[in-house]
């Protein structure tokens, strides 16, 4: 302590200020660099060093293609449904008043914090043997568990909050003035939504869509539990990576992991772009 007191007068305030600045920036940059950037470089290096032949073999194998296709199907359906329902729920939450609204608002945020494994378990309890809905569906010959429907269902559940969380605050801030003006001028409810509400929430909505797409591409915990992960049937891209990894086929796992990471980073560029647009719009 005394040493520090002795030394401080020799440094000018400006130098000290620069030291604190530089030090804090260095700490932040080194931490983020070591935590995020280093693993990214690590996987890129590991995947590229696998060699061209392994790349071609992996990316043309039927199992790989099927895994990509399945992930794409789930993601497209998830994006469509969460967009439509997300906007509806966000409008209801911000525009209507009803008893238990805050409880519903908490429920909306729940999938954000609950373990995806538990979400999968919920589906197993509902549709599995002895589950609530199992008798009806099996009587009608519809396979839910260990099949595509349950995989879509759990992904939807997990991705629904993203759109709502992005759109609801913007709706809240907008207020109802513009919408009321449109209605007074004779606009129908749908016209008002399409011409007034939608343009206002556009960027926030796109940001929410990008987040939910990124999440559904990578979802594993819930999907793994409900899918039964049959290779070539219910194996999504993340499950494929996990299986290759468990079988010590590291190169294949690295390659597919890198492609997913790449797709996600392209999505992230979109996210940043939409967020920027959304923020400049809000501050205007």
């Amino acid at each position, binding site marked *: 302590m005394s040493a520090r007191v002795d030394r401080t007068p020799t440094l000018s305030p400006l130098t000290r*200020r620069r030291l*604190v600045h530089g030090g*804090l*920036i260095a*700490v*932040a*940059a080194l*931490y*983020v660099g070591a*935590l*995020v*950037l*280093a*693993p990214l470089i*690590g*996987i890129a290096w*590991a*995947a590229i060093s696998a060699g061209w032949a392994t790349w071609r073999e992996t990316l043309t194998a039927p199992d790989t293609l099927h895994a990509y296709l399945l992930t794409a199907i789930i993601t497209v359906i998830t994006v469509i449904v969460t967009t439509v*329902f997300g906007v509806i729920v966000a409008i209801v939450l911000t525009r209507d008043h009803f008893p238990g609204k805050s409880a*519903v608002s*908490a*429920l909306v*945020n*729940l999938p*954000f*914090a*609950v*373990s*995806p*494994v*538990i979400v*999968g*378990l*919920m589906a*197993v*309890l*509902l549709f*599995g043997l002895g589950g609530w809905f199992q008798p009806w569906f099996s009587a009608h010959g519809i396979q839910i568990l260990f099949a595509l429907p349950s995989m879509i269902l759990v992904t939807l*559940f997990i991705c629904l909050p993203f759109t709502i969380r992005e759109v609801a605050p913007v709706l809240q801030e907008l207020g109802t003035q513009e919408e009321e003006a449109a209605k007074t001028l004779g606009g129908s409810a749908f016209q008002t939504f399409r011409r007034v509400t939608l343009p206002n929430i556009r960027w926030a909505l796109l940001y929410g869509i990008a987040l939910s797409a*990124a999440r559904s*591409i*990578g979802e*594993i*915990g819930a999907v*793994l*539990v409900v899918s039964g992960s049959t290779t070539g049937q219910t194996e999504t891209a*993340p499950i494929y*990576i*996990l299986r290759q*990894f468990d079988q010590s086929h590291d190169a294949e*796992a*690295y390659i597919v*992991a890198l492609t*997913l*990471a790449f797709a*996600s*980073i392209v999505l*992230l560029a979109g*996210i*940043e772009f939409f967020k920027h647009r959304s923020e400049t719009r809000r501050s205007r």
Partner: protein
Amino acid sequence: MLPTVAVVQRGFASGLGSLRDAFAQPGARNALILTLAVAALTALINVVMGTTIAYVLVRYRFPGRAALSTLVDIPFAIPTLVTGVMLVALYGPSSPIGGWLSSHGVHIVYQRAGILLALLFVTLPLVVRTVQPVLLELDLAEEEAARVLGATRWTTFRRVVLPAIRPGITAGGLLTFARSLGEFGSVVVVSGNILNHTLTAPVFISQLIGGFKTEDAAAFATLLFALSFVIVLITERLTRRSVTP
């Protein structure tokens, strides 16, 4: 969608009775303790580092600031399983860095340190992105007033800035904790899932389901579920209060 939640909650209620059975499963207690401890540690580190990063991003202008901001958002986009694979690729026994570290007695992959790294990666944006907006809105005049009145920079931060951003920090920390409790994708790859050593609660639950012990899984999940639910309710309160002080 929402009725599903209500129905499922009742489904869990029937599983509550077998909670004792679930804890009789080998490794159950240790899995829960490990998960709670490593989640708490993650939240603690995140609170300190997340606040620092948010402060640097908001208050300082330096080359590479935009790149730093983008890097902070990357964990939101990257699939969690890929996060785990990336950590193994970097620190695993077959990589140069992993080999060098293990020859010096440092083991990360298939150890608890790996779980911590994975959780820190996945939850990095949470504190930064809850503290950042509050810092942005904070009036610089208050800080300048404190400085003019003779307060040191540290005192200014502690007495002026910190009280304003505290709700944001707490909310971010709690979200980190909740997210860490449930994290599966990154942990399942990096931890090696060794019973009584690196097996976390979510992985344990998935193993129970895989072994058709659905009842035990439901009982164990109820515990985690209740914890997460309480945490979400608290964060809702906190963020609402910080919006309307």
